[in-house]
């Protein structure tokens, strides 16, 4: 009689075979569990992980101002005074980081990056308010030196008394955002934030090929290192997670010249439109919701705004902040 003759198998054989099969499955499962690397790549996980401090000023509350005018120095001054003055946000001895958009080695006339006039004026205002230092930074990926030079940001910042922090390999440390699906053990530009007490984002209003718009929240993308282009496949989630990761003191959204089409790089002046608007806000979601209107879009058409608002990071109903509106010639 063959042992494989199932019609002759007895209870004892059956239990034995089932036990063996169960043991084999348990061994395979156990081996899988044992070999599973919960921490991810050792090169990343073994490094010290970091997180950004919360730079927001709860005492200032949600505020927003919308100032029209073509002169950035004038509009940003009025925008800040409308919020209560730069002194409401920057105190004596503060160490301020200005996160600009210097993503491309592109001249300011093409409006693909933060405008040097705005960077210089905000740096001056911070120093005048008593800031101990102002650091201007971004991670443009492509030759940071060229980007900061050709955008005019380096010269403008230094002339205003600020320092430029160009990213190097050692400027990054991995960060993990709790509950995030994308920001896990990801390199974050952290070095310029050592000792920093305040963070101001300075972003231009631009069309964006993947996200629909690049504004205040998208500006934090420049704090990521590594091959961050992988996130473009899920651009709305990464912008939302960045809005959770970065809690700024203030955001300044420059809609003096808006890149209406072919963003974020642009290239032709015909991509640009003089929208002559400067927005300052403690609520980046509200700032972006208004910024969308400069692009001829609605907040509802940009999913990252809805995600951020739903998570309580700010309001997409910017009118609920009763923004102060004014015009300066």
């Amino acid at each position, binding site marked *: 009689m063959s042992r494989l003759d199932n*019609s002759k198998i007895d209870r004892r054989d059956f239990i034995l075979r089932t036990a063996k099969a169960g043991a084999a499955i348990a061994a395979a499962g156990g081996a899988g569990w044992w070999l599973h690397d919960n921490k*991810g*790549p050792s090169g990343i996980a073994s490094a010290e992980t970091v997180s950004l401090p919360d730079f927001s000023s709860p005492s200032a509350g949600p505020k927003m101002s919308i100032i029209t005018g073509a002169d950035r120095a004038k509009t940003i001054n009025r925008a800040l005074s409308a919020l209560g003055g730069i002194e409401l946000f920057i105190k004596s001895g503060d160490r301020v980081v200005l996160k600009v958009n210097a993503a*491309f080695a592109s001249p300011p006339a093409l409006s693909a990056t933060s405008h040097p006039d705005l960077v210089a004026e905000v740096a001056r205002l911070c120093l005048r308010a008593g800031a101990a230092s102002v650091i201007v930074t971004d991670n443009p990926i*492509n030759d940071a030196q*060229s980007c900061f030079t050709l955008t005019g940001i380096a010269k403008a910042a230094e002339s205003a008394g600020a320092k430029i922090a160009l990213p190097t390999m050692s400027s990054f440390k991995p960060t993990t955002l709790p509950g995030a699906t994308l920001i896990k053990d990801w390199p974050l530009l952290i070095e310029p934030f050592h000792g920093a007490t305040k963070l101001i984002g300075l972003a231009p209003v631009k069309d964006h090929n*993947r996200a629909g718009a690049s504004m205040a929240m998208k500006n934090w993308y420049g704090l990521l290192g590594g091959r961050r282009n992988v996130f473009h496949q899920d651009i709305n989630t990464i912008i939302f997670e960045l809005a959770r990761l970065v809690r700024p003191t203030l955001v300044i959204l420059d809609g003096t010249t808006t890149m209406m089409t072919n963003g974020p*790089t642009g290239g032709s002046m015909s991509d640009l439109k003089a929208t002559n608007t400067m927005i300052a806000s403690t609520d980046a979601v509200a700032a972006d919701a208004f910024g969308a209107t400069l692009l001829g879009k609605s907040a509802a058409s940009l999913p990252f705004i809805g995600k951020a608002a739903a998570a309580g990071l700010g309001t997409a109903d910017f009118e609920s902040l009763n923004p102060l509106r004014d015009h300066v010639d």
Partner: protein
Amino acid sequence: MNQSSKKRCGTEQWAGFIILLCLAGIAAGVYYKQFSFNPAVLVATAAPEAAKTISSPVPGAVPPALPPELAVLSAPENFEPDDVYIKIDGKADLYLTAGFVHMTCQRFALKPTNDVWMEWFVYDMGALPHAFSVFSLQRRAEAQTIGLTPFAYQTQNALFFVSGRYYVEAVTAMPTEPMMTAMMAMARQFVAAHPPGAAEMPELKLFPPENLEAGSQGLQMADAFGFDGFTNVFTAKYQPPGGATNVEALAFLEVTKTDADAAALRDNYRSFLLANGGAELASGDATALGKPINFMDSIEIVFSESNIVAGVHAAPDAGTATKIAQQLADSLRKGMK
């Protein structure tokens, strides 16, 4: 086989079935988990940027003899599909989905001061349709057509053109007359070195000329109109016949291998529209072109003619959509004779 053996056999079958079910569950778990792959792994496994091999430039990206008024301002930069995002972060996908092969860019300045400069980008897209695709998708509304090649225009501060498999941009922030003249001279030299050749896109000739907006033809090589079935869709803008409204409509066509493929693609696109909130117009005539579909407050028509699927996208009303679709269908029939 007695009753007891039959019972045992059944029990074993069930036990075996449950074990297989467990294994299938594990396989499903592995399959599901791969979609939440930790992106940090990519960082850890990627070669450091500094260690990247510097690739060679697009052959002849820069004409051997520069226009005499130009001087080299920077070394050429070269990018391939895996690193082009470094130069055009945020827009790389537009090129990659259209078959991007290689890009070389370099800055040049006007002699003698070097204060006025421009950047010269040469994208090797592999083939004329691919180069035309990225050219057409970025065409500026204020474009002024220039006779440099069949697909070329300029704006206040830049030149954009296709020459064969290459898409070229020359951009300056200081559009002085000497700089624009120098840019044009360099463009002519490039075209002389890389002539457009005899390659053409016969699909463009299938669009009827009546009410066609000049220079509006385009090519979308992925996910046209949000539908992933469209992978090679030629488009052209049309003013509504009779000028009833200022809203344009987009005529489109994609050539497939067989008539059956075209019919299947037509049906799939119709299903896609209907599954995403579209509704057939009750009053629409069920002509050979099919009933118009109201989709997000604009009108769509899709039909097939031999091995071509074609239609009208985002028309302001059913009448406009039907007229343009009929013109397109007539043109397709003529073109195929």
